[in-house]
């Protein structure tokens, strides 16, 4: 799982770019499961699933599309893009894919943690 040190974040958005690249093979920041929310000149906020114990998104989903197995898993066949999970997330760590309407939730790149590897300042870290 991820842990964040937002005071180290420089807003370079490399995490967003590598996330979109890894999951969709697309060079964009807009399909990322992690999001840097800038509020210049203040320190930015990093919004991403932190894998909380309560799994409130799973409980909130009215369609049973979300389950927990190592990370939050989405069954796209059950999901209708209602975004209830987005509102349920206590850390605002779920984003909607503008292209498909499905929620984007961190899957740790199935253990590869690409954002952690690419972050130049260790603002995004792996929680041991």
């Amino acid at each position, binding site marked *: 799982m991820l842990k964040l040190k937002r005071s*180290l974040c420089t807003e370079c958005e*490399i995490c967003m770019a*590598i996330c979109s690249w890894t999951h969709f093979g*697309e060079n*964009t920041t*807009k399909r990322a499961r992690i999001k840097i*929310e800038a509020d210049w000149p203040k320190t930015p906020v990093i919004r991403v699933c932190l894998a909380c114990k309560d799994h409130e998104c799973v409980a909130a989903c009215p369609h049973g599309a979300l389950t927990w197995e190592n990370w939050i898993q989405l069954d796209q066949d059950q999901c209708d893009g209602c975004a209830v999970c987005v509102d349920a997330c206590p850390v605002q760590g779920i984003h909607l894919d503008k292209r498909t309407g499905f929620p984007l939730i961190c899957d740790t790149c199935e253990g590869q943690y690409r954002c952690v590897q690419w972050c*130049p300042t260790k603002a995004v870290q792996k929680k041991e």
Partner: protein
Amino acid sequence: MKTWYGYTGRILDVDLTSAILSETELDPCLANDYMGGKGFGVKILYDQLPPQCEPLSADNILVFATGPLTGTLAPSSGRFEVCTKSPATGLWLDSNCGGYFGPELKFAGYDMIIVRGKAKAPLMLVIDDDKFELRPAADLWGTDTITTHRQIKATFGKDFKVACIGQAGENGALIAGIISEYRALGRGGAGAVMGSKNLKAIAVRGSGNIPIFNPDGFMKTCREAFNELANNPDTGGGRQKYGTNVILSLMDEVGIHPVRNFQKGKFAGADRVNEDVVEEYYVRNKACFGCPIYCSKIAEVKEGKYKGSFTEGPEYENVWSFGANCENVDVGAIIQAEYLCDYYGLDGISAGNVIGFLMECVEKGLLKESDIGFPMSFGNDESIINAIHHIGKGEGPGKRWGQGVKKLAQQIEGAHEFAMHVKGLELPAYDPRGSTGMALAYATSDRGGCHLRSWPIGDELLATEGRMDLVSLEFKAELVKTQQDLFGMINCSGMCLFATFAVNLKQITPFLHAVTGLDVYSSSEEVMKVGERVNNLVRLFNIREGLTRDLDTLPNRFFSEPLEDGPNRGRVVRLDQLMDEYYMVRGWDEDGVPGEEKLKELGIDAK
């Protein structure tokens, strides 16, 4: 329709006079021969700008252009260019900026925006993916850039990226820049051009993807380049810690850091204004899109007279222009000054030069304090802050000061000797009496007094191997020419010049090829040729606008006043031999006109 990689293949053409917006396709020849950014700008301006057009008239064209690497994962590739005819020099102007606007424009699906004509009333351009429109901006007119950014984001959405002008650009100050995501396209008066067109701002949001031709090759080169940047002592060390101020003490030590409007080469206040002191003001690190160097900083003044002031910076040039150049030792004032320049939309280098120039005018008795309206003397921090407010608002004599040093000196008898500009653009923070490379770089820079067309001081002072003698003339013409072509190409690519401290041409070439898939970018020679082609076409543009050899020179002070202190004591600039050599190396004749053979070699058709 052609499938594009790296490029979006689409251009947004905006005519403000008729309010007609149209989408056009990118010409493949443009991508092959001129790559992007500055290259796109010069080809369009050379072909389409009416010769001798008045820069602040509806005839002028303002091009916002990205490069093929802009917005990609290639490191430090968040850059875009604004190209136009400069109202400060009457010649070519391109200004480069990082931040997030360039990548967002690509994500929205455009390689560039061409702005023509003049709106009847203040407008802003809003681009949301493939939807675009002009909207009234009367409510934003008269507003500073920081409020303008916030207001636009509050109205349209916080993920919109903005480029806008402040009051200085609206008022036609020739030292006004464009501010984008709190960073500046400062130099040469692009802000005044935007203001003359009644265009307050451009806001863009995009959700698209930039297709990559060879994803595996691209990722391999990315990893290598990110490693190079992390392991380089500058990009992975000093620049991360200190930002661009990393070289402050060194420049002072070698006597190149100009003091008192270039009267001296050694700063008595260097112990109070240096990278270690400035670093104490840094609150956090800040980067542009996709950049692991994070040379930008957020700085805040915690105590003293300027308590509460903050800025993104202050960066090296402004620490000099409001510091040593005005003999000011209050770092708080420097931070406030840089903030105010961003706030009003002013260029910090030119503003600091204007103030240093006014200080010297008063010191020499050419201006009286009553001409100024408040105390104006070297070392007085309040002189600096007051002057910026006056210039920014265009208040009283501030309106005249905003026209820059060249125009000011024409109105003040005897001031010509110490008007520190080249071709009408004020000089940056290196004294050419201590660096023959910088002397030639300034004299031959296509936009006037600039350190970013070539930066020979790097090879003269900082290179780990093959370091050159600072004041020798040997090989300086070749060095400046080669760097100008490299930097020219980088400013076409979308990558940042700072990345080239660690990432060399042998890595940039595979980037360009993997991203675009264009055959022409499989060879480093061809890639460098783009830089040379661009510089030669800019030269032709400048000659058409009236550039002659006698303007390829420096302020008289550097020829007639030897430095009195520091390691370069007694030195003046000798330029004639260097200029002859430079023209020869360039394949230009003795008047600085590109020869037919050179143009043929570069495939330039000079109509």
